[in-house]
């Protein structure tokens, strides 16, 4: 460890780290100790070219770039004296010599580092009388990204990103000097599974995503911390919310999970929140087999009535449940409590599987597969086998993942059952066989915890409120349980209390509940699914 002093703050830092890394490690960078920077990014190789992070290191005559200067024991760094201020002002003035200053029509305005640093560290007036360089304003780089060459400050973060993270290397700097431009090879496109990250790391408005650009001014957005539910990586995100609508996902830094990245597929999954096929009302099947919209109370009564009748006639053994691994721990815990209160022991979890990419994307395409296993849920396959053998008369289905090819393989298999109760976010084939259907909240619309593939519990919070009367699976099961008079169900449901109860009841979740997980998540206890 090395002891260094930065502007009088004493720090003990790891040997071999650079000044910027040491401050970043300590959580102080741009958060107490400000060293503005463009080309440096905590997750990319050092470039050392923007020259904005120059600081004074006692004993070294020239100013040093903090991004590439390793700490030494006893090092004394000044980041805010007159000499440093002048150097920053010089770099900022030069960065603006060719910048088009088209902030009023630039989508980055409001979250632009050029704006921010020019305001904070720049000169307040321009001395340039020369024409600025005229370049292409709308370069179609590929399926996801549009590039404005004039706004580019050539920090080359995007170039390094493509080389270092997806390792596709589509982008390069062509030409030299003040005629340098970033481009793809002729005929080639910026097209990889992580392409949209370049828009996040672009400090200016040069790279924007086709999806988000011009949708809304960023200062109207509230950034709500959340978790991407596209796969079991559990990438941390910010949900950009305005007017009760999610406009975008952006990666939220978590060095234990996704660093500062998210895959394009996960990023675009925000669209499922407000999609047209969301279920928004309860329905029951009438005597003629038609689906009839109904009130929540009637749906609860219908579900409770059907289940109670079966328990009475055949016993709870004929009732089974399949939950999607997208459900939160709290919902799954309540699901299991509901089934055991009924007396049913037949349940399992459906997990969609796909390809892992060795970067972020995991094989299990559900946000809480590890959580389900930690709670004691097994695979849903035995449940499906039991349905096939005729041992099941009623099925509770949480989420349409049960329709998987490897499980039900379609809704037809449920057509002969006495009772199918579906709690789901989106419309699916299940609506043709369900006797009672309930719409449920999306992960972006509720409180809950999810456990990622590495055994890390993370929380989601409501970012938007559905426009219909919406409940979580837990809340609905609590009501159905109460309507049936099941032990321990009185119709009330407090997700915080459930989370605490779960934490006390399941050893893997010891000490982990909605409040203690925090925005960064916490690893499950030993013996859980942790790595």
């Amino acid at each position, binding site marked *: 460890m090395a002891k260094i002093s930065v502007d009088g703050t004493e720090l003990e830092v790891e040997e071999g780290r650079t000044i910027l890394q040491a401050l970043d490690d300590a959580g102080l960078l741009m958060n107490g100790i400000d060293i503005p920077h463009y080309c440096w990014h905590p997750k990319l190789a*050092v*470039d*050392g*070219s*923007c*020259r*904005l992070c*120059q600081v004074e290191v006692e004993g070294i005559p*020239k*100013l040093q770039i903090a991004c*590439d200067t390793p700490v030494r024991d006893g090092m004394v760094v000044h980041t805010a004296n007159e000499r440093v201020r002048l*150097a920053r002002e*010089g*770099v900022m*003035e*030069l*960065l603006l*010599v*060719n910048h088009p200053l088209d902030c009023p029509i630039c989508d980055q305005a409001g979250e632009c580092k050029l704006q921010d640093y020019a305001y904070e560290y720049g000169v307040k007036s321009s*001395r*340039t*009388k*020369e*024409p600025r*360089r005229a370049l292409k304003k709308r370069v179609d780089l590929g399926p996801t990204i549009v590039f404005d060459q004039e706004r580019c*400050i*050539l920090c080359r973060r995007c170039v390094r990103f493509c080389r270092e993270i997806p390792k596709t290397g589509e982008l390069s*700097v062509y*030409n*030299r*000097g*003040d*005629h*340098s431009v970033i481009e793809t090879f002729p005929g080639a496109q910026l097209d990889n599974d992580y392409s949209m990250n370049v828009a996040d790391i672009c400090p200016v408005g040069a790279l924007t995503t086709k999806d988000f650009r011009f949708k809304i001014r960023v200062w109207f957005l509230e950034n709500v911390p959340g978790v991407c539910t596209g796969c079991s990586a559990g990438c941390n995100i910010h949900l950009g919310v305005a007017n009760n609508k999610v406009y975008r996902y952006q990666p939220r830094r978590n060095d234990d999970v996704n660093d500062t990245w998210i895959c394009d597929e996960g990023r675009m999954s925000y669209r499922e929140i407000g999609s047209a096929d969301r279920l928004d009302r309860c329905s029951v099947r009438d005597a003629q087999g038609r689906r009839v919209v109904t009130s929540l109370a009637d749906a609860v009564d219908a579900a409770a009535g059907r289940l109670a009748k079966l328990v009475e006639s055949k016993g709870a053994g004929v009732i089974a449940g399949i939950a999607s691994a997208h459900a939160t721990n709290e919902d799954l815990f309540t699901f299991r409590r509901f089934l055991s209160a009924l007396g049913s022991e037949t349940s399992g979890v459906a997990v969609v599987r796909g390809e892992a990419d060795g970067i972020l994307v995991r094989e299990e395409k559900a946000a809480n597969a590890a959580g389900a296993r930690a709670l004691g849920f097994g695979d849903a396959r035995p449940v499906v086998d039991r349905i096939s053998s005729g041992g099941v008369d009623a099925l509770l289905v949480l989420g349409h993942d049960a329709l998987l090819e490897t499980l039900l393989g379609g809704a037809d298999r449920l057509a002969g059952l006495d009772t199918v109760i579906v709690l789901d976010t989106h419309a699916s084939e299940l609506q043709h066989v369900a006797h009672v259907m309930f719409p449920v909240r999306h992960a972006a619309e509720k409180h809950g915890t999810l456990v990622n593939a590495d055994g890390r519990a993370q929380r989601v919070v409501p970012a938007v409120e559905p426009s219909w009367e919406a409940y979580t699976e837990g809340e609905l099961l609590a009501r159905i349980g109460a309507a049936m008079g099941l032990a321990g169900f009185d119709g009330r449901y407090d997700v915080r209390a459930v989370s605490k109860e779960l934490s006390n009841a399941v050893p893997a979740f010891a000490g982990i509940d909605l409040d203690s997980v925090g925005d960064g998540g916490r690893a499950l206890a030993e013996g859980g699914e942790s790595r």
Partner: protein
Amino acid sequence: MLQSPYVTNYLTQHFADDGFATLEGYERLGGYRAARKALTQMSPDELIELVKTSGLQGRGGAGFSMGTKWSFMPKDGDRPKYLVCNADESEPGSFKDRIMLERGSHQMLEGILIAAWATGAETTFIYIRGEYAFPADCVERAVAEAYAKGYLGKNVMGSGFSHDVRVTRGAGAYICGEETGLLESLEGKKGQPRKKPPFPAQYGAFGMPTTVNNVETYSHVPHIVDKGVAWFQSFGTPKSPGTTVFGVSGHVARPGLYELPLGTPLAEIVFEHAGGVPGGRKVKGVIPGGMSMPVLPAGQLDVPMANEFLRERKTMLGTGGIIVMDETTCMVRAASVISYFFRDESCGQCTQCREGTGWMNKIIDRIERGAGDQGDIDVLLDVAGKMEGGTICAFADAAAWPVQGMLRHFKEDFVAHIGARKCPFPESFEL
């Protein structure tokens, strides 16, 4: 035979003899004697010490002690070590290495061989600028001859030491003459200087310990080994020993190459050797060491051409490329051409250099067109100041210095342009 009215010394004395460029002719004139002595009678440490003591300074521009540079190479470790011969001579006003490559390639190769033995290098890469097609052919021919004779390859001269030489051609960027820009280019990448540290002696070509020296610097080495330090130091000044090959161009009667001791007064080179300005016109200014070095006015030509004296006049020896400008020269126009060169050649990595070179060039052009105002001179000086010292390599300094030099000594030209709202000189060429 090449007829030469020009001044020669130990480096160039045989350049008029076509035979000197062949192995047979070179050996006949004493060639490879020093290499044989070094490889068979001297230890690497002795050689490094010898070159260090000789005071030989790099002739590529920076003037760093060659022996000291060699001593930076690690002595142990099993990583291969490399030498690079920087033959990317691209400093405008410099053309000495070209003749050294064309007519003295064995002399250079002998220096390389001695340096390789001293540093333990297994391979030397000779990086020749792409435009030097004929010089590159000459070097390739010399290398082939040396291999055939057993002076390169396995077991050189029966000493047990092996050394390979590979000739690589650049693709025409000034910045590839900067040693780490050269290394990037050598590796097949875009020629952009590297952050230092790590320095090439730790992390050079292909990540291996590497020493980069200039063509002429290598060429001095056999003479020092052969004739000794005292003989070498009998040329030049105490701080800058030896000769160098000055390339004189511009408004002189006899432009060309002159091998003279370091410390020779600039006036002697310009007026005696190069014959002064033709047509009875007067000298206005002289750039003493290639275009990136600040200009000196006519009143300062008494300066001895060695760094310790040139530094006092806020300029440097650089590559020894002397550019003479007579009284008809518009210094704003000259500054415009110079700043355009640096604008075009900046690699574009560092903000100050990328944007500063362009901005300076645009301001100077505007002044030349008659659209400048008084404030422009201050902005120019300020921008040049901001470019200095804050970048990955010295290119930004090299771009700022000549502009600062022009404003230091010829500010009146700039003021006259601004006052007259036009260029007061006859238009000699299109900008």
